[in-house]
């Protein structure tokens, strides 16, 4: 299955720098509809008002963390199947285990490179 690059993608991170990096990389990969949110709450608002084909989120944010956001997404029928990739500096085993238990689609540890992001997106959406 080929990646539908017209899908709406949401990038969530409380660091503007990282938001810009991820947005730029997504653009380079061909995605045209990219939204950003700088907190879990802002992300939830956008998720409730839009239909996203992919969510890429940081974990360590305040007040709502990426894990809480993931659980919210997975708890609703309308969004429970949306691919959700965690991009985070949290690299302990228990973090990955907790994210997997919460239903994360894939997991990227910062710092990462463009190829890693492409691979992980491909693993949840299909080939580019």
């Amino acid at each position, binding site marked *: 299955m080929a990646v539908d690059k017209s899908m709406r993608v949401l990038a969530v991170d409380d660091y503007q*720098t*990282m938001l810009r*990096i991820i947005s730029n990389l997504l653009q380079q990969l061909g995605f045209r509809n990219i939204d950003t949110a700088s907190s879990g709450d802002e992300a939830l608002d956008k998720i409730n008002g839009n239909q996203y084909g992919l969510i890429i989120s940081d974990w360590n944010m305040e007040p709502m963390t990426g894990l809480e956001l993931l659980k919210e997404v997975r708890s609703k029928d309308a969004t429970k199947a949306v691919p959700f990739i965690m991009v985070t500096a949290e690299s302990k085993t228990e973090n990955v285990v907790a994210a997997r238990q919460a239903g994360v689609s894939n997991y990227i540890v910062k*710092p990462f490179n463009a190829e890693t992001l492409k691979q992980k997106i491909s693993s949840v959406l299909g080939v580019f």
Partner: protein
Amino acid sequence: MKTKKRFTIESNQIEPEDTPSESVPDAAQPSESTASRSEITIEKIKDAVTAIVRGELNNWQPVASTSGDMASGSSAKDDDPAKNIFKELSEIQSYIETSRAEIAALKPDEGQDSQFSTAKLELQEIVDATARATNDILSESERIVEISNTLVERLPDDQLEAVGEELSALDMASTQIMLACGFQDLTGQRITKVVNTMIFVEERINKLMELWNVQKGTGTGDLISVRPDDERPDKELLNGPQKAGEGISQNDIDAMFA
């Protein structure tokens, strides 16, 4: 009748006050005068320790109030447990007074910020400065990509073919620069951890000050720019970057040279 316990040094036992130790026949018991001099109630010891910890006893002569010849310590008998206890208490008092003075140096003097507050602001400055620099780098990197894309759109096919590899390399380099800017996120998170640890330590020190009744602080908000063992002759002039609004501007410096 309320039974008050007391500590009899000679026997190392806590006895009810209405059971005088002198009533126990024992050949090893000291003379009556020595015994009465050395009997200390637990409450007295507790009071003394509390007073020492709270800093409410200055230059305490612990033994003077109990026994005339015990204050100096020079004539104290090493085998007298009462004297040893007071000697230990005196040493504890000395240590605590030293510690109190050290901690007072952390408590800000009136009108001063604490060093912790200043240090936290400095760390925030680092986060802000790296964020600004990173955003500038990202903007220029994005501009390179835009120029590259413009060239792809405008160049005739034959010319595009000639420089195609170079343009691809330019795009890849821009991507690498962008990704390298991710350091700002990671350093920001690490600095946040340091700030949180400082808050933790500060809270504990504040509790210690409260417990040890440190009233007057002698600390300043100045951060320490050089190591205590720094021997450079101009170390007093080495203060590092100044906070926004502090120091003088390049214009002011230029004016000084005009």
